[in-house]
């Protein structure tokens, strides 16, 4: 009797283990397989994160099946195992074949429509059958095309970001067309409305509608600026115009006395930022010396003075005069001048009489700012075909230390032709702003140009156009359909596993129950 009982106990355990085991390799195995197929959608690019959509769909099918199983178990408690197994299997089959049917009918026809739609474009849209086979490599090509653009121009995510606050501590404004226009933006000038550059893609702005001081472009801003810039150039070229000359003329006209720009320069706002005298030497202690920029925020006028933040002529004169006066008093430097003078006599013939004489004059007298300027004038150095003068030197310096106060409009705001104005903004942002934040968009070398990195070669206008068209088209269909293509690949191969496992699990449960009922009979003292 005891032996008999042990055999039955062993059988019970075997059936129970088999039941659990077979149940556990149905849907879970399917999800495991799906992880490989959906994982191919990648962690970057337009399909990034859509693998979760695929898991969700299959997991929901699993939940529905479990729910049906429980309900069937309760309602049909007394019914045969076969009936219960049948109902649950039917539900599982519907749950699994459904997505395949949906794809074969709906998605296939959607793809045919898309194929027709893009047949005239440069983008080659693959047939459904090819997409089904190659979705993983297409998703990865999308990701690498995007990644290549991002790294070439050293961009910061899709929508960019700031590396810190504005120089003058004025607020940064996150804004996109369609949002309520924040009150903190300036109010426009001379009958012109306030202008926010690139509002249709948005970004982080200063009060004047330019990007905030340390705003690093994201994919969307870089694309907007480059497209605008390249399109304007192409259009002008097609019409035989020189857009850069037009811009130079427009800016020259604005610099003339009486223009709207020169009028603007006399306003309080402009004078506060760029006026000659700083309001004070140190931040204000009391509210009287603060100005209200927003409803309840006050800012210290001290910080709004733009001359804190760029290299002025005064600053250079001060610097050079201090250095030269110290050198003039140095015995070592006098000795050095003597050595250099002697050396000049030796190599003078190589340098030419004019330069030798200019250098000799410099070395024979005390050094000063004026002496250096005299030297500059006599050297007649040529840069880009033009002789470098004192003004030219500051022009060069201003490029390197450029600063536009966030509280005033830039000169480009006043260009009356909106297309030319936008071109000017794009050029300024791509060149100067980009050079400041280490994300140059326009130039012979672009992207990450810093003290220890020399940037990348730019992409041509054609390359960019092709890239953006590809990404645009792929953005519309890949995230929507690709998770389904991953599901399709998994289901076609492995869907059959699920019903088999369900049926076997019910059979094993039935076998377990049979052994179990014999056990209870024995327990009651019944005979075999």
């Amino acid at each position, binding site marked *: 009797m005891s032996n008999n*009982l042990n055999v039955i106990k062993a059988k019970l355990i075997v059936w129970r283990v088999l039941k659990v085991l077979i149940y556990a390799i149905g849907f879970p195995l399917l999800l495991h397989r799906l992880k490989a197929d959906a994982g191919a959608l990648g962690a970057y690019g337009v399909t990034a994160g859509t693998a979760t959509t695929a898991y969700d769909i299959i997991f929901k099918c699993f939940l529905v099946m479990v729910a049906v199983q429980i309900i069937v178990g309760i309602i049909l408690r007394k019914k045969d195992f076969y009936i219960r197994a049948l109902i649950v299997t039917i539900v599982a089959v519907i749950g699994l074949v459904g997505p395949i049917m949906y794809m074969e009918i709906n998605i296939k026809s959607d793809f045919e429509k898309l194929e027709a739609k893009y047949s005239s474009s440069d983008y080659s849209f693959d047939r459904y059958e090819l997409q089904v086979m190659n979705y993983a490599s297409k998703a990865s090509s999308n990701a690498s095309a995007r990644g290549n653009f991002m790294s070439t121009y050293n961009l910061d995510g899709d929508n960019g970001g*700031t*590396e*810190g*606050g*504005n*120089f*003058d*501590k004025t607020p940064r404004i996150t804004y996109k067309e369609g949002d309520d226009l924040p009150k903190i933006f300036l109010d426009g000038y001379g009958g012109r409305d306030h202008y926010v550059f690139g509002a249709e893609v948005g970004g982080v702005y200063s009060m004047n509608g330019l990007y905030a*001081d*340390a705003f*690093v472009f994201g994919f969307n801003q870089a694309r907007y600026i480059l497209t605008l810039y390249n399109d304007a150039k192409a259009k002008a070229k097609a019409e035989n115009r020189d857009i850069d000359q037009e811009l130079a003329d427009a800016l020259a006209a604005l610099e003339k006395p009486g223009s709207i720009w020169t009028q603007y320069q006399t306003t309080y706002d402009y004078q506060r930022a760029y006026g000659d005298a700083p309001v004070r030497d*140190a*931040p204000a202690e009391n509210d009287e010396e603060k100005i209200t920029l927003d409803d309840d925020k006050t800012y210290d006028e001290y910080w709004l003075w733009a*001359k*804190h*933040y*760029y*290299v002025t002529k005064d*600053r250079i004169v*001060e*610097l050079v*005069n*201090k*250095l030269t006066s*110290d*050198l003039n008093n*140095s*015995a*070592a*430097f006098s*000795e*050095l001048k*003597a*050595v250099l003078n002697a050396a000049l006599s030796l190599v003078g013939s190589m340098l030419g009489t004019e330069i030798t004489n200019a250098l000799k004059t410099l070395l024979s007298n005390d050094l000063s700012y004026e002496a250096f300027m005299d030297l500059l004038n006599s050297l007649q150095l040529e840069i880009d075909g033009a002789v470098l003068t004192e003004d030219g030197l500051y022009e060069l310096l201003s490029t*390197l*230390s*450029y*600063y536009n106060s966030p509280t005033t409009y830039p000169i480009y705001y006043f260009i009356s032709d909106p297309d030319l104005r936008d071109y000017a903004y794009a050029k300024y942002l791509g060149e100067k702003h980009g*050079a*400041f*934040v*280490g*994300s140059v968009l326009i130039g012979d070398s672009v992207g*990450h*140009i*810093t*003290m*220890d990195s020399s940037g990348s070669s730019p992409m041509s206008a054609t390359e960019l156009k092709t890239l953006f068209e590809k990404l645009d088209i792929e953005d519309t269909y890949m995230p929507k359909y690709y998770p389904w293509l991953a599901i399709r690949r998994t289901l076609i191969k492995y869907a059959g596993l699920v019903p088999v496992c369900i049926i076997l699990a019910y059979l094993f449960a039935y076998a377990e129950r049979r052994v179990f009922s014999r*056990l*209870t009979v*024995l*327990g*009651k003292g019944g005979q075999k």
Partner: protein
Amino acid sequence: MKKHKGIVLIKLLAYLIGFPAIVAYAVLQSMPVIKDAATGTDNTSYFPYVYAGLIIVALMWLLYLLVAFITGHITKKRKTVRSAYVGTAVLAVFSFLLTAGVWFAIDKYVPPILSDATQSTIYYSDLEEDYADRAHTHSELLSVFIEMNIANNRLSGDPEVYRTEKYKNKEVQDLIKSSYNSINDDAYNNFNGPLINMANGGRLTIPVLIHLLLDDRAEPYQPFTNYTGEGRGEEHKDDPITWAILDMQQEIMQVELNLDDLLGSLLQDDMISNVISTLLTSYAIQGTIETINNAIPSEEILGAPIYIELTYDQALASVLIKLIPSSEKRGVFDYMRMAWFDSNYLLVAVISLFPIRNTFYIGSLLLCLSSLILGVARKKQYAGHGKMLKGTFSHANEIPLPQSNPNYGRIAYDPQNPNNQYSKTYQYPYV
């Protein structure tokens, strides 16, 4: 009685393979953090912070003993199999939560706090396994700081006292504080707008560098304790000082002027290169550079010192122009290391937690095992005395079942047929 002795021995063994083993291993693992004999570094002056990890181990041991005592006491008092089982389960789950569970929570919630507190300069993942190296780095910071400041006389007492007492020395502590305050408020917070973030964030562009060097900045205000260098006499000992961008990163910038292009084959003549070399070391040039170096800190120029060094490298055939920051001379580190250093005692405390991380994760297995052994021993111990009552439900012997409904609920123990478990289990199903 003999059997009872054996059980006591097993219980003792269970207690020994549990926490004492964990503690021993934790102490062993913590040694490189506390005092690394191999490298001679030592964080013991950060008492009691450096022992934070071991203090936590000790506290957890106490908690474990408390729960072990309570569950043991309940089993002893109730004398039921169920109470032994429940006691074992409670102890095992508690051990797991106490060891692995606590670390699950730390692993989840501490990483963002740590990277925030260190401005993303120390990541949790850096510490997980590599804590010994990190402890070494932080210990070295203290030794190097003391040596730098003995050398520049900011620590002007007996050097051996500073070297022995290290962080316990009040003067050292104050100097760390004032050094950090100066570089934080008069440098990090004193550069305009976004510049310093851009420099630290891999965007040190030429315009950013020019702004950093030449823009106007607010006056410094943090006293820089005991500093008389750069020609400042005793009267300016504690006055505030300004810092240049190079100090923030303590990086030497080097420009290489290659003479090959200029002089070509001439350079191959030893005499020519000797002339260049001699010229560069001459008083005329070195004295002039000294004049420039002295002028740079004036407000009209940079407002903060940067030392120019001019040398000739014969192998490279180049004149090397080096721009050297003043921070080392002044006795401070770059900003990132200075920020760590200011809260070094806290970082050392955080680092001291990591040697016990793996110990706790692996130890959770050991504790669960020892809890189980303890539970088995308890059951045997009390059953051995014949006091343990068998019963699936704990109150079987306390609350009599209604006689009218023998099939309902709990099943009474049948002393006539103690082995027939199936009759109980299956005949009267649970309700």
